[in-house]
């Protein structure tokens, strides 16, 4: 069993601490993602493990042997490094490059033997680069080149593989192929793999564990579900994120949300009558503009419901595939009353959600400014034998503003919102008798409390 341990490592550049008191242990088969914001010490950690940067305190042990006391050629028999970018001075062929991986195993005057060639061939077949053998390395694409460099690392027959941002400049398919390959290697060859990565989702999908660095220290380390949490991501990257389990890969995946523009003044409330994804873009745009957005009635698991949840928009909800009941309609009306503007999107209307349209009409009659997005003619999306169309006509008659395209809405609202009384909606102010019916997704503020 090969064990790599980082023992109280501290690195400084002059008086600036780059890494502080880092202690970690890795064993065979570990595939560890090293994460952290720029300047948190990820690369320095990898450099100290790869013997490129000697720590000012502490050391790194490979099978209890201090790597800083080893000869570089001896360490190279056990540890291989794939750098972020390989800039190769002369036009060596791919095979030349991979053969160089055999250097630590060769004597000074030894030429590459048949045995070396067998190992190199295996490494190149594993990385799917054997067909590139006689191509000059500098004429290969980024992905091919990176695979050749991984083959060179494998030709070293290492027990530890270090990757420093190996996916930089690679397109999606190459990123996935390289990560698939590395995961295979860690599983089948029982390598210890440490990779500095930027993409939380790549780590979530491929690694067995992760290290999260913040301000030169380890913030969290361990199994993915303990490291990749909303709270950790918020605290380390200052980004709100939702962490879910992927239904396809059963691995955690992270949906980062754009940083909130806190400097904006709080604008009035807008209530969305939407569904089936027709409100997604508008909700996002309005939230970004700084409006307080509410929505309802939405069936849970509807696309717009999920968006509302992501954006932390308060919603009135109904069970999936169920018609709107009187209670939820009432709750929805309560929410509409708090709003200065109501927006009706191009959602199809059936008997299940017709009462949303009734609510909009009621709000309009009470003097709430109402925008109707009429992107798709109502006749096409009216599944109520003309009742929805009739209500549309009435909306128009009562002064609702009809818009042809959803993208026009934020501009229109921006132009007029100052004339509208600022909203007073706050989740705490929802009338007591509605509280049970209104599902409020807790705001960050409340979470903090």
């Amino acid at each position, binding site marked *: 069993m090969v064990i790599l341990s980082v023992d109280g490592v501290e690195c400084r550049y002059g008086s600036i601490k780059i890494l502080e008191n880092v202690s970690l242990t890795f064993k065979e088969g570990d595939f560890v993602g090293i994460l952290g914001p720029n300047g948190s010490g990820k690369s320095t950690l990898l450099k100290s493990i*790869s*013997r*490129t940067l000697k720590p000012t305190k502490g050391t790194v042990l490979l099978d209890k042997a201090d790597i800083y006391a080893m*000869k*570089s*050629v*001896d*360490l*190279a*028999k056990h*540890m*291989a*490094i794939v*750098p972020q970018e*390989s*800039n*190769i*001075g*002369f*036009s*060596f*062929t791919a*095979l*030349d*490059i991979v*053969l*160089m*991986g055999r*250097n*630590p195993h*060769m004597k*000074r*005057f030894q*030429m*590459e033997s*048949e045995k070396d*060639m067998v190992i190199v*061939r295996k490494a190149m077949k594993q990385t799917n680069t*054997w*067909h590139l*053998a*006689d191509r000059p390395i*500098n004429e290969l694409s980024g992905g091919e080149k990176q695979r050749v460099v991984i083959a060179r690392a494998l030709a*070293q027959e290492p027990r530890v593989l270090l990757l420093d941002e190996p996916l930089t400049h690679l397109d999606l398919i190459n990123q996935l192929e390289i990560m698939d390959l590395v995961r295979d290697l860690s599983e089948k060859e029982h390598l210890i793999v440490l990779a500095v990565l930027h993409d939380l989702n790549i780590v979530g999908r491929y690694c067995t564990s992760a290290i999260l660095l913040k301000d030169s220290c380890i913030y969290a380390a361990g199994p993915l579900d303990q490291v990749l949490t909303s709270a950790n991501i918020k605290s380390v990257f200052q980004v709100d994120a939702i962490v879910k389990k992927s239904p396809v890969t059963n691995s955690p995946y992270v949906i980062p949300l754009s940083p909130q523009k806190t400097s904006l003044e709080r604008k009035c409330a807008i209530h969305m009558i939407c569904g089936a994804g027709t409100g997604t873009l508008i909700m996002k745009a309005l939230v970004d503009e700084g409006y307080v957005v509410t929505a309802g009635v939405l069936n849970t698991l509807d696309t717009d419901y999920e968006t509302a949840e992501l954006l932390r928009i308060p919603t009135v909800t109904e069970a999936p595939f169920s018609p709107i009941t009187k209670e939820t309609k009432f709750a929805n009306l309560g929410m509409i009353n708090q709003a200065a503007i109501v927006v009706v999107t191009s959602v199809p209307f059936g008997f299940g959600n017709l009462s949303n349209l009734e609510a909009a009409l009621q709000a309009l009659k009470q003097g709430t400014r109402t925008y109707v997005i009429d992107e798709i003619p109502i006749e096409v999306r009216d599944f109520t034998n003309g009742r929805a169309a009739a209500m549309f006509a009435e909306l128009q008659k009562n002064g609702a503003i009809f818009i042809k395209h959803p993208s026009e809405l934020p501009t229109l609202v921006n132009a007029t919102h100052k004339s509208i009384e600022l909203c007073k909606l706050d989740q705490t102010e929802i009338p007591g008798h509605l509280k049970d019916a209104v599902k409020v997704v807790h705001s960050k503020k409340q979470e903090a409390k």
Partner: protein
Amino acid sequence: MSVDEVQKKYSKRPYRWKLILLTLVAALVLFIILCLNVGFAPISFSDIITIIGKQVPFLNQYINPSSVSVVNEAIILQIRLPRILAGAIVGAGLAAAGVMYQGIFRNPMADSYLLGASAGASFGYTLAVLYGGTLAANILGMGLFQIVAFLGAVLTVFLVYFMSRVGNKVPITTLLLSGIVVNIFILSLQTVFELRSGQALMGIVAWIAGGFTNITWTSIYTVFPVVLIGTVLAYFFTKDLNLLSMGDDTAQHLGVNTERVRQILLLLSSLVTAAVVSISGIIGFVGLIIPHMTRLIIGPDHRILLPTSAIVGAIFLILCDSLARVATGASELPVGVITAMAGTPFFIYLLRKRKTSYSL
């Protein structure tokens, strides 16, 4: 070519390399004999072979000593042969040093004068001519001027090296920049002294232009061991040079002690350059073009590149020198002019043809 053929080609590589080297050595010997024929006095090949044969132990008992004239023998042995051998040694030294510099700097634009060996040698020579001429001392059998030129070259390279030292490392970029700066500085000093040199100016300019007019056997005996030993020692590190081309960090991760290798190779290449410059003056382009051209033909592997470049450099320079001897009739051109004239167009052609950019 299929991939399996590629593999076969690689497994036969040691034999192919040996064959290339043997062929090139044979070619060198052939060119030396051919060039012995070039010159103002017509001497036939049979006479040349007889004269050379007389000098070879065991072989000389079969040769009739009186079959060639004493004058012809003197021309061949005291004038042409040392000159041609000097050309071969200087060409080999410059090309080998060029390979080392290009490998160390990971850049095919580096040449053997990169770190100021040429400027230092010229300046040393100029000082010796201006202020040491009356001494006319002969130390170690070599001319004083040569020794001062050698010292100038070595001191300049060491100055550049120690200027670039940061802690116990010598970063490549710093080294390159210090080389450029020191070169410019010494050249400006050189100009000052040249302007004050009066009558001696012609001699200084002619020496700097490079050539083999005053070659003696003594200078060959002194310089040949330096070039030979330097190149052979450098060969020990050719595998490391291959690895260095992937950058310092990667080379280290593959087991190369990069700082030490670089120090040793800089020392060797600088000594070789200084030694050849001291007998030939500044002959440009050999250290730049020969490694470059050889690399295009046989590939970038330094294990074969270093020895082939050395032999090709030797052949190239004796051909250029022969041309210099006969090009303009009785008065000869400096060989540095010929190498530059032959080299520049070729180099521009290579650059235009391979539009790949080079990076440090």
